[in-house]
């Protein structure tokens, strides 16, 4: 092996010595030299990388790509281990010294390391398998690589510690999977998350970083469903990693454990420093062991659960009281006009109220079509609702049109004046005017007609109406014969004595009457009067012939 190393070194030197421009042009001998060198290097690295499937680099007959692949296969896991180791040494510089000792001392450590690496490799195998599977996703690969590497790193760290503390017996409970210390730390971490522990700044930043990592790790873990063991282990490792920082604190506070007070357990003061709390918490780390989840619960900010709940309730109550005292929101205030609420506040609220009005009709095609159908039917039937011209009653009487007569007036002018004068003085006596005459004639005709009709239709006889006519009736005989008499004889003389006076008996004047006759006359008169009065009252048809007798007596 040494010779190969030397040979490799030499070939490298040789390659290095070549001028850079030489590399630009592919040359056979250069490539051969390079291949040989890489083969040597490969074989030299072989013992350090137990996983490589090749014992030596196969050069003959393989092209550059395939050679690269082989190298890659070997170097990848090697790189992981190297990185891990470096980080480990970063953290614990003591290890280096130990390593030195080991190397100097002998191969014991190496063996242990190898053992450790073997153990690690067992786990690594699994991880690497998974890693191979995820070759496609390069990003995931990276994450997983980091995680795996850290996981392995932590694992090795822990295992390293364990190797240190080889003498201690942990007890039958603990095995590869269940570590009591891990459990404790996990619980504390969880607690911290739940109760919002304030950590130191330094720890904070680191924990933040760790949290990010853990998140990544957790993401990666979610993807892996095959290896639950690994999950558990990894989680435990995270927590351990996070809380591993407290290991320092742990050692510091061990002394004050004996001086514990009530306040440390159940802090009365609400604003206890986070460090103190952390200390108080950590003090119990050793004591509590595996069975004090409840204790962890009690300790947070020095208040108990009950007090926390009370505090929450109190704050709620305060809030509600405050809300009640404040003036109500306008939506809760009953009838609110625009002036009583904020501008545009009604736009934000989803108002819902009933509309009591039918919404306006939307004029669709159907509607128009139905209307047109209606119109068409009406047209074809001819049924229209037009305005009807109504015959109006003539409210005015027809004017009296005066007819102009062309004929010569039959009345003389003197007669005309006479009529006018009479009309002015005595309108009743005036002879009727033309129009009146027509009316009179019409009314006369009508009356005659009515009389005849009444006579035909009524049971009671209605005699002719008396027409009072003023006319001078001369007492002339009905038959007026011409009498041949001398001119000197007057009309009075022409009358016969009966015509002059129609009466009988002895006529006496009042002066000539005797007393008894006067009395007789008076008595007759009285009787007559009484009879008439009685007749008027009774209204009976005349039966008696008293009149005749009276008449007869009157003549006397």
């Amino acid at each position, binding site marked *: 092996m040494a010779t190969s190393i030397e040979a490799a070194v030499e070939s490298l030197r040789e390659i290095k010595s070549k001028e850079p421009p030489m590399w630009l042009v592919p040359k056979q001998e250069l490539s051969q030299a390079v291949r040989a060198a890489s083969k040597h290097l490969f074989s030299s690295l072989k013992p350090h990388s137990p996983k490589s499937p090749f014992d030596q680099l196969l050069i003959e007959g393989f092209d550059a790509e395939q050679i690269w692949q082989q190298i890659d296969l070997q170097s990848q896991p090697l790189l992981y281990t190297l990185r891990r180791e470096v980080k480990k040494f970063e953290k614990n510089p003591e290890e280096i010294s130990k390593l030195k000792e080991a190397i100097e001392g002998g191969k014991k450590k190496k063996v242990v390391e190898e053992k450790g690496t073997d153990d690690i490799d067992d786990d690594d195998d699994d991880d690497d398998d998974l890693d191979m599977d995820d070759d496609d996703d390069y990003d995931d690969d990276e994450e997983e690589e980091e995680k795996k590497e850290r996981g392995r790193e932590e694992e090795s760290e822990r295992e390293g510690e364990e190797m240190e503390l080889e003498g201690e017996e942990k007890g039958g409970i603990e095995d590869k999977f269940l570590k009591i210390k891990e459990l404790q730390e996990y619980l504390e971490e969880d607690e911290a998350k739940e109760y919002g522990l304030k950590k130191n700044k330094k720890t904070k930043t680191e924990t933040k970083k760790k949290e990010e990592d853990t998140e990544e790790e957790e993401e990666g873990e979610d993807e892996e469903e095959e290896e639950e063991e690994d999950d558990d282990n990894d989680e435990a490792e995270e927590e351990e990693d996070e809380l591993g920082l407290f290991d320092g604190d742990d050692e510091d506070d061990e002394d004050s454990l004996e001086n514990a007070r009530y306040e440390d357990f159940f802090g009365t003061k609400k604003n206890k420093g986070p460090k103190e709390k952390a200390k108080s918490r950590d003090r119990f780390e050793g004591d509590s062991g595996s069975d004090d989840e409840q204790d962890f619960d009690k300790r947070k900010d020095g208040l108990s659960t009950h007090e926390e709940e009370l505090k929450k309730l109190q704050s709620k109550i305060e809030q509600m009281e405050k809300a009640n005292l404040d003036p109500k929101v306008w939506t809760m205030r009953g009838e609110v006009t625009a002036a009583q609420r904020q501008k545009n506040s009604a736009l934000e609220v989803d108002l819902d109220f009933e509309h*009591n*009005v*039918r919404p306006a009709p939307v*004029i669709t095609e159907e509607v128009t079509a139905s209307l047109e159908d209606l119109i068409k039917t009406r047209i*074809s039937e001819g049924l229209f609702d037009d*305005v009807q011209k109504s015959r109006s009653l003539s409210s005015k009487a027809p004017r009296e049109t005066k007819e102009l007569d062309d004929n010569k007036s039959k009345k003389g002018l003197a007669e005309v004046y006479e009529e006018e004068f009479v009309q002015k003085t005595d309108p009743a006596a005036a002879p009727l005017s033309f129009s009146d005459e027509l009316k009179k004639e019409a009314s006369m005709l009508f009356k005659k007609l009515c009389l005849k009709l009444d006579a035909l239709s009524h049971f009671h006889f209605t005699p002719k109406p008396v027409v009072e006519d003023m006319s001078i009736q001369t007492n002339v005989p009905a038959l007026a014969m011409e009498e041949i008499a001398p001119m000197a004889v007057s009309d009075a003389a022409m009358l016969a004595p009966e015509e002059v006076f129609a009466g009988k008996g002895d006529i006496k004047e009042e002066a000539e009457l005797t007393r008894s006759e006067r009395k007789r006359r008076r008595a007759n008169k009285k009787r007559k009067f009484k009879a008439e009065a009685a007749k008027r009252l009774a209204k009976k048809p005349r039966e008696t012939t008293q009149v005749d007798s009276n008449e007869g007596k009157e003549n006397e």
Partner: protein
Amino acid sequence: MLRRNIRLRREYLYRKSLEGKERLLYEKKRKIREALEEGKPIPTELRNEEATLRQEIDLEDDYTAIPKSHIDDEYANATERDPKILLTTSRDPSAPLVQFVKELKFVFPNAERMNRGNQVISEIIESCRAHDFTDVILVHEHRGVPDGLIISHLPFGPTAYFGLLNVVTRHDIKDKKAIGKMPEAYPHLIHDNFGTKLGERTANILKHLFPVPKPDTKRIVTFANQSDYISFRHHIYEKHGGPKSVELKEIGPRFELRLYQIKLGTMDQSEAQIEWVIRPYMNTTKKRNFIGVDQKDDKRKH
């Protein structure tokens, strides 16, 4: 002129006051007439007055038979003359409103359009009475869209207030050739579904805006009522293939009218009695139909 108006108004009020008695008389006469026709004995409460009432019944003709109310009285003389309408707008009309009013001028025959300027309503009404107009129509708008129509019958007549919806004017339809010209013959009218008393009244108001048409006009104006929304449509029809085939062509604006008030005076009489006003806050308004009867097979229901 003033005195004549006062006298007319007094007559009108007097006749309005007599209405109650006339209605009573009418009822009695009606009962007697029914009894006579059916051969039943006359109701006992009317026996005393029966003779005089019988006489009156015999003497009456169909004009006097119906009791006239002051409401009908407004349109009593309307049929004797052609209506004369004045169209105007609210103040400061926008251009679309002016166009709409121009269109309406062609819809109503014998109508005149007038610019509003800054005239007061009472002035307008006075001058219309003086010039023997029968109706005044006022159109209101909202941002260019016509949204209100007030029809006032003139001597003392009723004023009907409408809201306009879904207005489509002729100017909206840009294509001049498609619309064509508007004929100015007196149109036939169609009223559909004005069943109730209020509906009859509204139909009356709308009817008397138009004159008596010739029987053979091709122009049709339709007022169709559906759940208290009156649709106005304006068509020309042609009968190409015989009497039964009818082709309609729509011209003129189309809109929906919604009646919200009828007042028993003219527009300037703000204290006039309200005959009917819409009451949307009533619990049952949604179910009721005020103007017409509800159609069962309603295609317009939403």
